[in-house]
């Protein structure tokens, strides 16, 4: 009897894909609590804004966002992804901020033959040999901004640096990327606990090391606290602090305030980047949420746009995974960073810019585009990717 | 008579105070040897040292011909040196039978057996019931020990000590807190036990002491000041002066 019912159910299920889906579900797994909550929330808001501009639809289909908070914890992320895939049965997964969560959940998503659109974490593990046909990134390979920063610091002629990053995969990627383009003396590499908030011990060591520049890869609340404490300790008087774009983004500026002025940082996007889509994005985002979008928000926005374009490309027949993949690979949408193409590993080939925190027209601190550091930059791992 | 227990120069200090101050003492096989002394004389400390609950700062404890000074309490129990407690120490939440069974099981080889229940070993239950009968608690086997009357709890306490077939039984104030009638029954019990095992009796009840003891030793300020047969002790001027005067007079 039960076997009969199972067979019947299987038959019904196998019939379904003949029709185009009527509604798509997007599993949005991200970090939305704790010191780095702002990151996940920015990605979500960017994603939601794009959906809203499309009338609540993606690729012409009604879309539902199923949100899960991974609390920056790989374990929690793994449990949530099981639920998203097996209970909610989402069609796409996106939103993941942190690389440790990404590495923990990615295999399960790939096993379920579900597309994973990264709106931030793009670790080396998924960019080279371990690249996957189910993975696309609308952000940047984890090394990118740091490679740009390494090049900038080298070009400026700072001959010694201290590097600080959390002790997790993206932290190691970051410092590897930095060193790929920086050939001066690295006096010290400090790895701190992920989520650490008190940097007194590290700052004392930095003071003793006397470098010309300090480069930090400290996302979210970690960066906020580090910069505050760095200035409170008076280190800004004797050395230069440089970070990737998100360490000096609008949320950090708001939290830290005045001491941020003048800080250089590197990213693949800036809110004053001159293209039509970006102008619309920034204006609408400010109107909707009353704040200037961050790099994270732009990545979330582009993730939604990419899904929108791909679903549209297959005319809503998202069960045809091969066609859908082709549509993803085309990246046929106006990105807020300007045009870009996917490399073989599904990671963007794009420019990286130098930005600086300065006083805006309204007298408030904000980022300003300074120059282009790397043009149509390809990541170092793509060559090792043999996409199946 | 052969010597069963021998203490040599036993010292135990707490801070600056020597609670046991160079005790040399022996107990012979088969006797009931009472240890008396005023409160704070160090009786309990001495019992702890003999039973292995604490270890001495100096001196030796010999039992049945071997040095057990460094042996743990359970190792001494295995050799036959068993104590009961002044403050009743039984398994209050368990039935009297379970109390007895736990004690009997201890004397029946290793309990590192993880598969069969002890009920499967009929011998344990049988011996436990016999043990309860021996102290007169066979009617109360299924009662939780904590709800037994005080005198019954004291008997159970003795039963637990008996279960492991001791050669020397250290009874620490078995009559503590008992009424005259209960005391009388406990005295009878001890008299019966005395025919099988050597007993060291630490007791305040002088009536009981003089009824039961073959020999009596007097502990004052951590030292044995006198040791001998009841009549000698009764007559010993030093003992009278130091401690017994009034109580002894009344007992006599």
């Amino acid at each position, binding site marked *: 009897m039960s076997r009969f019912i199972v067979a019947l159910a299987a038959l019904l299920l196998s019939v379904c894909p003949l029709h185009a889906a009527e509604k798509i579900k997007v599993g949005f797994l991200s970090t939305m609590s704790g010191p780095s909550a702002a990151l996940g*929330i920015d990605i979500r808001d960017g994603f939601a804004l794009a959906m809203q501009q499309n009338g609540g639809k993606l690729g012409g289909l009604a879309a539902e966002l199923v949100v899960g908070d991974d609390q920056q914890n790989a374990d929690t992320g793994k449990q949530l992804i099981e639920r998203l895939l097996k209970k909610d049965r989402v069609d796409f997964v996106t939103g993941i901020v942190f690389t440790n969560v990404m590495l923990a959940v990615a295999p399960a998503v790939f096993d379920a033959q579900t597309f994973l659109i990264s709106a931030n974490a793009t670790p080396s593990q998924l960019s080279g040999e371990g690249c996957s046909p189910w993975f696309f990134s609308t952000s940047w390979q984890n090394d990118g901004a740091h490679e740009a920063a390494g090049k900038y610091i080298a070009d400026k002629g700072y001959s010694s640096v201290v590097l600080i990053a959390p002790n997790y995969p993206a932290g190691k990627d970051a410092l590897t990327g930095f060193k790929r383009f920086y050939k001066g003396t690295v006096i010290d*590499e400090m790895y701190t606990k992920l989520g650490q*908030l008190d940097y*007194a*011990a590290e700052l004392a*060591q930095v003071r003793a090391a006397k470098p010309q520049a300090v480069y930090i890869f400290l996302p979210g*609340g970690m960066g906020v606290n580090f910069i505050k404490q760095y*200035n*409170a300790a008076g280190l800004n008087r004797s050395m230069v602090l440089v970070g990737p774009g998100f360490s000096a983004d609008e949320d950090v500026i708001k939290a830290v305030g005045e001491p941020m002025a003048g800080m250089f940082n590197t990213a693949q996007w800036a809110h004053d980047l001159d293209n039509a889509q970006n102008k619309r994005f920034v204006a609408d985002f400010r109107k909707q949420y009353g704040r200037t979008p961050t790099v994270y928000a732009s990545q979330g926005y582009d993730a939604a746009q990419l899904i929108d374009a791909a679903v549209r490309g297959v005319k809503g027949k998202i069960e045809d995974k091969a066609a859908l993949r082709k549509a993803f690979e085309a990246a046929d949408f106006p990105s807020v960073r300007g045009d870009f193409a996917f490399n073989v590993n599904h990671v963007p080939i794009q420019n990286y810019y130098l930005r600086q925190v300065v006083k805006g027209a309204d007298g408030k601190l904000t980022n300003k585009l300074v120059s282009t550091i790397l043009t149509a930059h390809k990541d170092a791992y793509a060559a090792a990717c043999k996409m199946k | 008579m052969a010597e069963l227990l021998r203490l040599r120069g036993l010292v135990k200090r707490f801070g600056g105070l020597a609670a046991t101050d160079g005790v040399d003492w022996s107990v012979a096989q088969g006797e009931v040897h009472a240890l008396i002394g005023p409160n704070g004389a160090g009786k309990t400390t001495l019992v702890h040292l003999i039973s292995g609950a604490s270890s001495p700062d100096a001196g030796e404890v010999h039992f049945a011909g071997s040095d057990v000074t460094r042996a743990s309490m359970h190792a001494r129990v295995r050799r036959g040196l068993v104590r009961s407690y002044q403050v009743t120490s039984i398994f209050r939440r368990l039935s009297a039978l379970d109390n007895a069974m736990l004690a009997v099981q201890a004397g029946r080889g290793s309990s590192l057996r993880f598969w069969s229940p002890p009920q499967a070993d009929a011998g344990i239950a049988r011996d436990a019931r016999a043990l309860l009968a021996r102290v007169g608690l066979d009617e109360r086997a299924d009662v939780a020990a904590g709800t037994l009357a005080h005198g019954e709890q004291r008997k159970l306490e003795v039963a637990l000590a008996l279960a492991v077939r001791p050669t020397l039984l250290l009874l620490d104030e078995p009559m503590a807190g008992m009424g005259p009638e209960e005391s009388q029954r406990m005295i009878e019990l001890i008299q019966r036990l005395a025919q099988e095992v050597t007993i060291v009796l630490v007791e305040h009840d002088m009536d009981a002491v003089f009824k039961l003891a073959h020999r009596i030793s007097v502990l004052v300020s951590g030292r044995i000041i006198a040791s001998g047969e009841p009549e000698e002790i009764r007559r010993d001027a030093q003992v009278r002066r130091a401690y017994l005067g009034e109580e002894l007079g009344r007992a006599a």
Partner: protein
Amino acid sequence: MDLILILEQGLNGLQFGLMLFLLAAGLTLVFGIMDMINLAHGSLYMIGAYLAALVLGSTGSFLLAVCGALAGTAAIGMLIEIGILRRLYARDHLSQVLATFALLLIANEAMRILFGSQSLALNPPEVLSGPVELLPGFLYPAYRLLIIAVGLAVALLLYLLVAKTRVGMLVRAGASNREMALAMGVNVKALFTAVFGVGAALCALAGAMLGPLLAVEVGMGESILILAFVVIVIGGIGSIRGALAGALIVGVVDTLGRTLLPMSLRAVLPPAVASNLGPSLASILIYVLMAGVLFWRPQGLFPARG
């Protein structure tokens, strides 16, 4: 070796240790007097920090924020004591662990509902946001100096309170011998409630002072709670003096360990390996210390009893 580095790390350790002391002081009294394991103690620290953020947001005054946090948290602490914890004193440690673990979960969610999941960033008063030059070439954050000053003042105050006043004597009596305190006929219930209130206020002080340095967030009490337990076990449960000594030991060992361990490791290992191993080994250090103390001096360094 760099003298300034050692000095700076010493001050950092002192600052960290003094804040730990504020938490440990309340915990050790509750533990010692009421024989109560309170896993929700860290939640009072969190509540204090949130209250401070709330008052700071609406008044803009840091001093008011600290006072508000102290008063509010003390009140909340006493309410919890009267409403719930009082029923648990006579229960076994297991029930206490479960009940206070439940309180911890409830407090976390309550804060999340009231203030959202995002952490709040507090800023120290403007005048204290920069450094002070203590020695030529040695700049130290002014705000951390304030924390050290406050910590020392509170430690002194607590010492006077416990050592010199009648209430303090009762508290000490309670910590070393509960029955005696009961026999002395003091209103034990009121005393317990008051002690709990003071403990809560000390937590709030730590929360309010550390808020601008760290972040005000849900779950901030958990990691520091475990450290506070380590402190009181090292110092001896029930002893204020022990809590202070334990807190300073943990603070200094942890902070100096984070510097000196990588340094000494670097002498024998490649820099990347050394700086990776260092912080983690340093965090193990205090637990090794605690296990060692428990093993050799089970009652702690300054036992309150016996």
